[in-house]
């Protein structure tokens, strides 16, 4: 048995154990921690499968952002949770277990019987890479071949944000979201919030910048930048802007609107919506990504922050 195989088997067992823990454990907070660990282990699996793009996304979105959202939710539930004794009955739980097991078995059967070698569009995506000017085929898929999907995904994030904001109390509409923290301006959190962001911003921008040619990209970079912003706010060194703030709204819509403007310009310059004229593909793709960056950073951080909870100080 080679070392690589041993590592793989160990990873698989750990992931199964973490998944079982996440479901079985009764305390919400513990379950969330299990889920985040599960996401990080999954990141290692993607690395083992030599898919660094997916690994980065899993770490940033699956582990980091989702983890932050879930920890926030668990913290808010903490006070009321103990009083809720409602649990599904034996029948419901058995039904859920049987259904899940059936789906898992069917999926396992299908995956094990997939054709080998698998039919793939990867060679086609790589062959056309030259006409997009970017070096990373994942970026070419996201911003050239299937750019409308990416545009619409950015819009999904905004719609989700509208949905979160719609849960605000009418009284606080137009006000500021808030993080629940007990910030001490001289504490260790504040210290980190002063030291880390300069490094984090460089890492985030770097991951965003190299995304054109190497694994990385705007979603991953945006998550890191959003985390830095949340850190500063969580330490009490800054505040969220009110949701009615004009600059906030303009930055939130700027990404998708610039994306669409460049897309529609393609009709004149390259004969189709979302087409790029010869030789200009890479600068235009970068322009779209730069415009999307603030949109994503703000939207992701504000999703974690939740609905407006207080009126801005007059």
């Amino acid at each position: 048995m080679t070392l690589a195989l041993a590592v793989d088997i160990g990873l698989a067992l750990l992931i199964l154990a973490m998944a079982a823990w996440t479901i079985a454990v009764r305390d919400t907070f513990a379950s969330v921690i299990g889920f985040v660990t599960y996401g990080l282990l999954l990141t290692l699996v993607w690395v083992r499968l030599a898919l660094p793009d997916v690994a980065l996304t899993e770490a940033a979105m699956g582990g980091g952002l989702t983890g932050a959202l879930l920890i926030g939710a668990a913290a808010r539930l903490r006070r009321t949770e103990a009083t809720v004794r409602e649990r599904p009955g034996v029948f419901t739980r058995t039904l859920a277990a049987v259904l899940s097991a059936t789906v898992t078995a069917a999926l396992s059967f299908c995956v094990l019987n997939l054709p080998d070698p698998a039919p793939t569009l990867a060679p086609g995506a790589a062959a056309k890479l030259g006409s997009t000017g970017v070096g990373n085929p994942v970026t070419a898929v996201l911003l050239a071949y299937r750019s409308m999907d990416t545009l619409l995904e950015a819009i999904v994030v905004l719609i989700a944000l509208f949905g979160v904001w719609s849960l605000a109390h009418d009284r606080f509409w137009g006000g500021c979201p808030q993080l629940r923290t007990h910030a001490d301006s001289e504490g260790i959190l504040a210290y980190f919030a002063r030291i880390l962001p300069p490094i984090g911003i460089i890492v985030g921008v770097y991951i965003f910048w190299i995304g054109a040619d190497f694994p990385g990209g705007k979603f991953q970079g945006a998550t890191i930048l959003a985390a830095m912003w949340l850190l500063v706010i969580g330490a009490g060194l800054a505040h969220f802007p009110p949701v009615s703030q004009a600059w906030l709204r303009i930055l939130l819509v700027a990404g998708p609107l610039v994306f669409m403007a460049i897309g529609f310009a393609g009709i004149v310059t390259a004969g189709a919506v979302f087409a790029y004229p010869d030789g200009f593909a890479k600068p235009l793709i970068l322009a779209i990504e730069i415009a999307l960056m603030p949109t994503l950073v703000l939207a992701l951080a504000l999703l974690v922050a939740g609905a407006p909870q207080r009126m801005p100080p007059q």
Partner: protein
Amino acid sequence: MPHSLSAQDVTTPGGLLLVLAILIPFIGMLIGFVFGGGKAMRVALATLAVGLAIVIAIAKALVQSGDAVIYILGGWMPPLGVALRADGLSVVMLLAIAVVICGIGVYARADFGSPSGVKEARAPLTFWLLLLAVWGSLNLVFVSGDLFTLYVALELLTFAAVPLVSLDGRSETVRSALRYLLYALLGSVLYLLGAVLLYGVYGTLDIPLLAMRVRPEPVAWAALALMISGLLAKTALFPLHLWLPPAHAGAPAAASAVLSGLVIKGSWFLAVRLWFDVFAGVVTLPSAQTLGTLGAAAILVGNVVALRQTRLKLLIAYSTVAQIGYLFLMFPLATGLSSAGLDSAVAVNGGMLQAISHAMAKAAMFMAAGLIYTTLGHDRVADLRGMTSTLPMTVLAFALAGASLIGLPPSGGFLAKWLLISAAITTLQWWWALLMLVGGLLTSVYVFIVVVRSLAPAHDGWKPKLPVPRYQQAAVLALALCSFLLGAAVLCPLDVMQIGRTVSRNTLLP
């Protein structure tokens, strides 16, 4: 089923309109968000007008060319790129949804206008932004030719629809919204799993290419089962309907109209697309019969439970559960026709007409219930006295919409049931015909009860709690009339729904 759509698609005249039909609502949403407040409503209403014009232009392009309207995004051919395609089915749905959305927009001006003295209020802004988002997402569902883009469309639709449930902010509506979200997300995951399996086996997500490559084998069956189950959860077909009544009945009237009339048609349409265009060579008559049986159970359970409701909005919501059942009778009927070597167009057209006439009728009904609620301050079915004299147009609209749900001539519901029943008789599946008649009978009972109760004279000295603007009543009546007169589609010299679907087809509606 032979298709004129082939892998060698090229952008057709009018193809650009498809991109506009998807993106214009989202552009309106983004601009409305920046301006905010009362301006968001004006931006939304202007967007509705532009969007309606675009959809009419698409219909013109389809009829003029006599073939599907196609746009290749970015000039990247499928399977690498994504194509938008609008055949007859897409175009009739685009048109119907545009009409209903415009009707709802006019109605909602009164309910979701900006309150005076406030710069911006939460519920109105959210409503107008999400109304546009629902529209853009539905248009994407109707014209996308790619299974992953369709997944994005489902995601957009879910996140646009769920907050509409809890617009009024009461904790029980938040609970209904959360339950809806869980069902809808489960549906999305199952759909995505199926799409991943299909890509793993056939190496493409493009619908026409996939239709050529897909074979009846276990992986295709698994993908079909996963995707259809996911879509059933989103469409709320019995027994996955439990989320629907509280969610649809608890939302404000205009939002209920969007949810009950429109949103569920998105996932249903996608199930139709998969069944007839992707998996035509994989589906079997027994699997279609299973869907039909669930539909039958939905019709019986939905109608019987609707009869027992004491609140008007819940009654209408359970009626939606029943009407969704009719939408799934088209599967055994169309599959029965094609496995007998006959043209399945009759059953498909019947199902589509049912979806369209229900969209119009149900939107009208929920909005009528909203006006009754405003006037009375409650919506108890037992106490609707005085409504006919106070809101004659609204009660008439309710009755006309009810007639369409029952299936009385010349309504769209009548023509739909006529086509479905004739398909049932042709394929010797008489039990579906019988079921439709029983369902119509049950529906007529509760529509009749509501109308009779509202005919009773009001108590002396009773006054409406709040006056209702006439244009709101007119918008409701207009939608109800559209549904009631939709049966006139039989006079249409051209079988619009089947344009761009098969090589040659001469059968018209009967």
